[in-house]
C-alpha cells in the first residue's frame, strides 16, 4: 500500500492519546485488585488443612499457567451463561477481573518470597521477646518483608501494563483498540500501530529504569555480603 506518512501520524496521535486514560485506568484497577487478591491466595494456602492448601495451590497454578486472553474471554463471553451465578460484566470490569486475578497469582508469590526472606532468627527473637502475633507481624516481620518486594511488584506492574491491550479484544477502548479502528477506517495501520508501540515504550521503559534503580538500592540495603564489605572498609 503506502509508506510512512507523517500526516497520518500527526492526525492519529491526538486521537489515540485519548485512549491512554482507559489503558492506564485499567492497569491501575487490575493492579490494585491483584495486590489485594495476592493476599487472599497467601492466606488460603496457609490454612491448617493441608489438603485444602494443596487444592488452592493447584487452582492458582492453573490460573497462572493458562493464557490470560482465554480468561478474559471466559469472564466476558461465557460468565453470563454460567447457571445461577452468572451476571454479565462490562468489558472494562471483565478485563479488570481477569487480569487482576491472573496477576494476583504472581503477586502472592512475591509476598511469599518477601516473608521468606526475613531471617528465621527474627521470628525466634520476636517469639522469645513475647511479642503478640500482631506485634510480631507489624513491627518485626512486615517492615523487613515489604521493602525487598517493592521492585518485584514494580516489575509486575509494568508487565501488567503490557498485558492490558489484550482487553482491546473484548472492546475496551484503550489505545490499541482506537488504533485498530483508526486503521480499519483509513486503511493505514502502520502509523497508528507504531504510535501505540511508541506510547508503550515511552511509558514502560522509564518505569523499568526506575524499578531497576530501586532494585539496586534494595540490593545494597539488604545484601548482607555487601553490607559486610562496607563495614570493613
Amino acid at each position, binding site marked *: 500500500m503506502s509508506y510512512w506518512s507523517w500526516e497520518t501520524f500527526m492526525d492519529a496521535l491526538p486521537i489515540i492519546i485519548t485512549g491512554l486514560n482507559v489503558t492506564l485506568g485499567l492497569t491501575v484497577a487490575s493492579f490494585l485488585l491483584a495486590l489485594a487478591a495476592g493476599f487472599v491466595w497467601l492466606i488460603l494456602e496457609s490454612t491448617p488443612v493441608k489438603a485444602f492448601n494443596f487444592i488452592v495451590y493447584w487452582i492458582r497454578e492453573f490460573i497462572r499457567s*493458562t*493464557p490470560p486472553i482465554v480468561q478474559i474471554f471466559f469472564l466476558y463471553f461465557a460468565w453470563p451463561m454460567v447457571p445461577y451465578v452468572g451476571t454479565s460484566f462490562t468489558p472494562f470490569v471483565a478485563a479488570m477481573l481477569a487480569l487482576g486475578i491472573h496477576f494476583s497469582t504472581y503477586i502472592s508469590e512475591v509476598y511469599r518470597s518477601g516473608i521468606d526472606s526475613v531471617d528465621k532468627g527474627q521470628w525466634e527473637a520476636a517469639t522469645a521477646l513475647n511479642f503478640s502475633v500482631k506485634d510480631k507481624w507489624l513491627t518485626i516481620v512486615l517492615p523487613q518483608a515489604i521493602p525487598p518486594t517493592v521492585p518485584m511488584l514494580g516489575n509486575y506492574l509494568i508487565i501488567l501494563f503490557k498485558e492490558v491491550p489484550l482487553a482491546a479484544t473484548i472492546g475496551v477502548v484503550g489505545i490499541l483498540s482506537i488504533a485498530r479502528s483508526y486503521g480499519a477506517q483509513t486503511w493505514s495501520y502502520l502509523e497508528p500501530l507504531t504510535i501505540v508501540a511508541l506510547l508503550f515504550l515511552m511509558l514502560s521503559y522509564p518505569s523499568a529504569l526506575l524499578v531497576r534503580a530501586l532494585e539496586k538500592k534494595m540490593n545494597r540495603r539488604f545484601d548482607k555480603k555487601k553490607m559486610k564489605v562496607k563495614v570493613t572498609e
Partner: protein
Amino acid sequence: MFETGWNILNFLTQGLGTTLSIFLTATVFSFLMAFIAGLTRLSGNILIRGAAAVYVEVFRGTSLIVQLFWLYYAVPMLFNINLGSNWWVGVVAIALNYGAYMSEVVRTSVISVDKGQTEASIALNLSRFQRMRDVILPQALRLMLPEFGNYSIQILKGTALVSLIGLTDILYFGDIYRSTNLSEGPLAYLMVLIMYFIIALPLIWLSKKGEKIARRGVAS
C-alpha cells in the same frame, strides 16, 4: 455435562496442531534470539552491544499483542514485504518478544558466574571463544534453567494470541464452539483452559526440575 465436556475437548483437538507447532517453533527461535542477543550484549564492541540493547529494550518495552499486530498489519505496508504466512508472523512475533526477555536471563546468568572463572581461563590461555564455551556457559546454563522453564510457560500462554491474526489454534476452535452453542460457553472456555493447562503441565514439571538443578550445590 461430562459428555459435552468430552465432545468439546475432541472438537478443540483440531487446533492442537497449530498451537503446538507454533509453540515449539517459537520456543526454538526464542532460545536462539536469547543467546544471540544476550551474548552480543556482553560484546566489547559498543555498536554491537548497543544494537542488541535497543532490540531488547524495544521488544521488552512494548507488548506482544502490539508487536503481533504491528508485524501483521504494519510491516507489510512499511517494507512491502510479506512474512509468508500468518503462521510465520505468529512465530516471529513470539520469538522476538520472548527472545528479548530471555536474553536478559542469558546475560545476567553469564555475568553472575564467578569472576575467578574468567581470570582462571585467561591465565590458562584460553581464547575468548573457548572461555565462553568451555568455562562460562556450562556454569551459566545451570542458572538459566528455572527461568527458561518459566518462560516456556509464558510462550505457551503467548501462543493463544495467534487466533487474533486468523490462525486456527485451540482458542480459535473454542471461539467457534462457543458461537454455535452459546449456552455451553463456560464449559467451552473451561475446556480451552484445561487443554492449555495439560500442555503446560510438563513445562511446570520441567521448570521445577530446573530449579532443583540450579540450586544444587557446586563448588564456588
